[in-house]
């Protein structure tokens, strides 16, 4: 599926709920279902700054595609980062860099996007794009590094 198709699917999944509690329940389930990050990546190097809850994000380049894994100590945040992974993980650096993430707005998470909002959704998106740019620039195929960000 393309970035657009995945986003549309997510919008569909959320569209059945009017109530915020149901949306949060869905995010909680997604948070719980998010595949665990390798614990060796839960270090300062992979911690995203600017979040009230801790978010670790690890990128890996395989066959020209970037694969992300992540974790958070807050479940809703984990659900949100899980959504981002669904949309952006397994894509080429170019796809990630050029992705327009409209689903955030459409499912009502826009307020969580503001730069001052402490769950730092914006920081997560920025970080994913930065990793993609770094891969594109260096063409490093071997391993990801949390340094230099």
């Amino acid at each position, binding site marked *: 599926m393309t970035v657009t198709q995945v986003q549309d699917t997510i919008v569909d999944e959320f569209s059945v709920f009017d109530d915020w509690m149901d949306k949060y329940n869905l995010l909680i389930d997604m948070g719980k279902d998010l595949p665990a990050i390798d614990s060796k990546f839960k270090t300062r190097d992979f911690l995203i700054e600017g979040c009230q809850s801790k978010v670790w994000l690890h990128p890996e380049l395989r066959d020209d595609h970037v694969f992300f894994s992540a974790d958070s100590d807050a479940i*809703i945040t984990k659900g949100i980062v899980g959504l981002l992974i669904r949309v952006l993980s397994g894509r080429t650096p170019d796809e990630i860099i050029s992705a327009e993430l409209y689903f955030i707005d459409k499912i009502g998470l826009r307020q969580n996007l503001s730069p001052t909002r402490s769950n730092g959704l914006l920081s997560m998106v920025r970080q994913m794009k930065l990793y993609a740019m770094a891969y594109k620039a260096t063409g490093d195929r071997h391993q990801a590094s949390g340094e230099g960000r």
Partner: protein
Amino acid sequence: MKNIAEIRADFPILNTKVYGKPLVYFDNGATTQKPQCVIDTMNEVYTTYNANIHRGVHAISDRASEEYEKAREKVRSFINADKREEIVFTSGTTASINAVAFSFGERFIKKGDEIIISNLEHHANIVPWQMMCDRKGAKLKIIPVNDNGEIIPEEYHKILSAKTRLVAVTQVSNALGTILPVNEIIEAAHAMNIPVLIDGAQGIQHGVTDVEKLDCDFYAFSGHKIYGPTGIGVLYGKEKWLTDMPPYQGGGDMVENVTFEKTTYNELPFKFEAGTMNFPGAIGLGTALDYVLSIGRENIAAREQELLEYAATRLAGIKGLKIYGNSPAKISTISFLLNNIHQYDTGMVLDKLGIAVRTGTHCAQPVMDRFGIDGTVRASMCFYNTKEEINILGTGIEKVISMFS
């Protein structure tokens, strides 16, 4: 005293709905809501006599200057300071503490001196002293805290010494709600001729503060936490200190005579009020203090204690809820965590139920470190809150627990 419906009618924002639900505002520790009379005052300033103070030769400037000085008198009387010269307007508690840390530091602190603060301080009563210590080669000493969130007086007495130059403590912990024994703290320091600064940001609005009775040397508070406008604050300082301390900002209005060779400073309190002051804010603060007095500070304190007891009982019945800060001396603030649910998750869900709480470290990271946690959920209530709202919070918390377990 006005009944609760009448009190709530004074605060237009309390009728607001968020996400279609009535707003339950439990974030009063961060900022308080404004009664209509304060909003009206601000409106009146800007619609009828907005003009720069202390400079004009014209009618509305005179009026603005007069109202500004009236507000100073209201503040003086509210905290029972001896003289109007001892009341300096600032932008808030943070600015007040920074002013003392700079000016007192410049005049009185040298290498090897010590400043005492407590483990309960807000960052605004930590960082300015750290900066001053760095500048002067002085050292910060910390009064530790017990498991109830109270300072340990014996430890305080141990670190008070001939090297201590100033004690700066909060009147009330913003993160836990603990009321500190400031009388004892001041008495012990004064016995050794050491001045004391009290951070009143969380204290001034919850009862009667009398700086003469307290005998503190400095007292700092913010307008916006006592139902007044944002961007105005107060520094009270005993005249003897303020006279000896150099100004911390230079500019207009704080000077008596300026030549390129030498500038002499204006008298107190203007020496510490450089530039155009936030006079609408000061005048609005005056109205807020009048409002508080009209409700009655004892009445406010009594009502808030009733709310605290009700909330403590309601929340104590919730399995998995742990309260941080269990001193018998507390303002109406409850800091808590639910099982192993992250405070941010709790706050996000409560928000969508219309309940405004604060989550995180509350700008008091050392308090969180003391308890080995990285944040709490804080419900800070005040006299316009109701038991029904506490029930809504209780039900909301139960909902959070069921969602995350």
